[in-house]
């Protein structure tokens, strides 16, 4: 394939999976007639509906929850990042591992863990612990904020620790040698870290208001209205209210853009770049045994709330026979797992999702490498700027908007006329998974791609390799570890993905997240949670096998790169 045709195929794919579905969907908010969703060519009535009554309440709820979650996540993440990056605390690397575990865990799984524990006749009540008080607190805004904060912490942690990593000790030293005290030095550090803190606030706010996992579980069960669930209801009802759903998407987008603008205004154009470069590594702050003990205690409490409770909720629920129904013995055994493993209705979704996740991860990583290469190209190119904008927009869009856009764009009569009807098929689900994964997978790889010195590739060409062999023999081995990480991250995220699966799964084939929801909807809490636990374990096993195989079988030189850098 020539360079020109490869370029064309790449852009056609980007337009087909990202640009067209989103643009068509958003256009319907203003012009229902454009795509046969109503008589008007231009109207704001969908916005009037979206900003009225219950929907307006939903937006206000989402905004308040988003702001509180962002502040809490940024504060906790700041503390975590400081301990990991700036102190000599024993076992602090475990904290980074926990942050990544939280990143991989979908919010609905965390919410479901809490629900299984606290619901009427849930695990706590079955083992004789009254849960009324805790339930009344957690089933509502407090619980939603807790779960979203837990989910927001890893994003905030990554943003803040990246900034802290680039912040050498010399800035504090400079304050001290020029006569400033500890407080003055701290003020300088806080000012220098503000890009990271603001980025954390903006990211967590955006993630929280666009979250669907908590909206469809804890928020829905506690009748606390949030915007993403209203959007889901507009698309999943009969008749479908596409213009209203599109108007809700616009409002969500505006909220996210406002958050990004606030971040920009607060920073006045400062960027992370100011902090990176030749900064010297910092000296770790030595913690006394007492402070170490207190810090670990705080961390354990955090760990308990973030992962322990939901994991305990899910695992214990999965071990109670007939939880949620009047039938069953309510005894502790493995009957739910045996049921999941023997029943096609419960076991098949896991296999189906695993296959789709593997395909998505493979195609997604390949496409993300191409995107990352365009973004990492020297200088600011037009394709680079356009792609950057498209991917940024896609990051800002909730998964549920993607899914709604896909339903809309690929259910048009035009596709039937062209004999390209992919609506309601696994192909469409795969394309939507790919589109959902592409922005974040690209972001994971763009840093790596921009670190590749062009001269390494040129040296290969000059010393006798053609373009393809130069890529295979030089670039692929150099980025092997980030490629593997990106693949595993995409695999795990797709395996457990909810909103796109919920709206686009083809009849007769259920992804695992939809299977879990379906089992729970039928009050088969034991079966649902057993599936949930198996799905998470499966994801962890795949991640373990991936990294283990790399460690055992990758050539020494491939491993040497990650180790010594």
């Amino acid at each position, binding site marked *: 394939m020539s360079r020109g045709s490869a370029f064309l195929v790449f852009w056609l794919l980007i337009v087909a999976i990202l640009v067209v579905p989103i643009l068509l969907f958003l256009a319907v908010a203003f012009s229902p007639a454009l795509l046969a969703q109503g008589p008007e060519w231009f109207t704001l009535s969908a916005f009037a509906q979206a900003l009225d009554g219950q929907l307006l309440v939903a937006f206000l709820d989402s905004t308040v929850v988003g702001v509180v979650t962002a502040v809490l996540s940024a504060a906790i993440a700041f503390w975590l990042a400081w301990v990991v990056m700036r102190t000599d605390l024993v076992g602090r690397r475990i904290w980074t591992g926990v942050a990544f575990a939280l990143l991989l865990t979908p919010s609905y799984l965390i919410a479901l863990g809490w629900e299984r524990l606290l619901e009427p006749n849930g695990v706590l009540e079955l083992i004789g612990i009254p849960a009324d008080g805790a339930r009344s607190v957690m089933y509502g805004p407090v619980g939603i904020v807790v779960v979203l904060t837990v989910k927001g912490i890893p994003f905030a942690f990554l943003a803040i620790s990246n900034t802290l990593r680039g912040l050498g000790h010399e800035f504090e030293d400079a304050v001290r040698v020029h006569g400033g005290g500890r407080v003055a030095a701290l003020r300088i550090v806080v000012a220098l870290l503000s890009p990271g803190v603001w980025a954390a606030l903006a990211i967590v706010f955006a993630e929280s208001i666009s979250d669907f996992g908590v909206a469809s579980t804890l928020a829905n069960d506690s009748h606390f209205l949030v915007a993403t669930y209203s959007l889901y209801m507009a698309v999943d009802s009969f008749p479908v209210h596409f213009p209203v759903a599109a108007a809700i998407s616009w409002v969500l987008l505006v909220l996210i853009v406002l958050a990004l603008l606030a971040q920009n205004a607060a920073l006045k154009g400062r960027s992370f770049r100011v902090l990176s470069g030749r900064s010297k590594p910092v000296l770790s702050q030595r913690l006394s045994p007492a402070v170490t003990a207190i810090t670990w205690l705080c961390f354990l409490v955090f760990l308990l709330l973030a992962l322990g409770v939901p994991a305990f909720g899910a695992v214990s629920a999965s071990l109670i026979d007939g939880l949620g129904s009047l039938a069953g013995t309510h005894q502790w055994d493995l009957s739910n797992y045996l049921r999941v493993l023997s029943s096609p209705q419960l076991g098949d979704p896991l296999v189906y999702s695993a296959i789709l996740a593997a395909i998505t991860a493979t195609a997604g990583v390949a496409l993300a490498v191409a995107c990352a290469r365009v973004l990492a190209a020297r200088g600011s190119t037009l394709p680079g700027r356009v792609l950057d904008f498209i991917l940024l927009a896609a990051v800002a869009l909730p998964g549920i908007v993607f899914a709604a856009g896909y339903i809309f764009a690929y259910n048009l009569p035009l596709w039937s006329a062209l004999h390209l009807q992919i609506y309601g098929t696994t192909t469409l689900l795969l394309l939507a998974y790919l589109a959902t994964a592409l922005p974040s997978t690209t972001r994971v790889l763009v840093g790596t791609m921009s670190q590749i*010195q062009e*001269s*390494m590739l*040129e*040296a*290969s*060409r*000059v*010393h*006798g*390799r*053609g*373009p393809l062999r*130069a890529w295979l*023999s*030089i670039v692929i*081995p*150099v980025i*092997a570890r980030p490629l593997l990480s990106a693949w595993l991250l995409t695999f795990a995220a797709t395996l457990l993905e909810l909103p796109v699966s919920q709206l686009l799964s083809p009849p007769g084939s259920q992804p695992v997240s939809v299977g879990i929801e379906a089992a729970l909807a039928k009050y088969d809490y034991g079966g649902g949670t057993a599936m949930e636990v198996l799905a998470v374990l499966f994801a962890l096993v795949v991640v373990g096998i991936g990294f283990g195989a790399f460690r055992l079988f990758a*050539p020494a*030189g*491939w491993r*040497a*790169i990650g180790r*010594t*850098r």
Partner: protein
Amino acid sequence: MTTAIDSGSFGGCSIELEDVRKAFGATHALDGVSLSVEPGTFLVLLGPSGSGKTTMLRGLAGVERFDSGTVRLGSRVVSDGRRHLPPERRGLAMVFQDYALWPHLTVFENVAYALKRHHLDGREARSRTMETLDRVSMAEKAANYPQELSGGQQQRVALARAIVARPSLLLFDEPLSNLDADLREQLRVEIATLARESGATAVYITHDQSEAFALADVVGVLRRGRLEQIGPPEQIYAHPATPFVARFTGLSGSMRGVVDRDLAAGVVEVRVGDHLLTASARGALRPGTAVDVLVRPSATRLMHPLHDDGRDGPSGHGRGRTDPASPEPNRIHGRIVDVAYRGRGYEHVVRTPYGDLTGVFSNTARARGTDWHLAIDSAGCLAFPIANAEI
């Protein structure tokens, strides 16, 4: 598949460039460069940043594509505006400024990689690789990864990678610029000897004139995408074609004057203020022509101190005075404004009535603020007509 030029054989290839051009947007990186280099020559392209030397080297390597013009390596046209032979088929090797060693390969594998195009059998490839590593004193580090080596060691490996396949053309992209002074000198000697031992033609780019003169058989001076002058280092230094070449190859300072008389044999007498300087005429200079006199550092010599009475000793006024003590040609006076110890002696900055002269050498340090007589050797004085004199 086309074979590479003279690949596998010892000996260099000739290089011919005809009207080579390359633009990046509105910037003309190369603006019609033509040159011809004999096989086995060590050519150094010297120029400031933005002069086009990197573009020229990358175009020769084939990683950059010239817009127009013809490039011949040996008997083969590798680029002519329409055709462009990719780098892997040009049979050359290159040492990069940032080394460009592959971090996932060991030192041995990095060097052996360059041999693969020759499809040698394993034993021969191994022995040739080890032989080359030994030649650059890196055999002991064969099993190490590049990131485990110092900058100097990495550049030695890059050098071994470049010569192992015995290419007919070796390209060097400012290979010493990331190294400290001591290593620079060591590696410079190695590059000079290895390139000549291999018999390959070498093209080396740098912005450092001392490095260029030390390495080159032929120096080409580039400025704003044009080749200002090409020739042996001695010729470039003694007979610079333009004021730019003179300045870029090392000047003490310059003074404005008017040609007083033509002394024949390309030498003129120039009146600079109240002084007369004999200088080598660069171009046809008639009496009355306004000129810039460019002075090489080697042409300056501190004679003796100037007194308060205008004869000897320190003076309170250095500027603007005539020098009755030295009426003979090629003598001016000035005040020492700075002195720097250089190990073998001292370099002074002398403020004369006509401008500062830097790099004025003396075995002993002269005190700052003292006024001195200064002799200027006519062989290191170059008079350019003012119309051509601006940088």
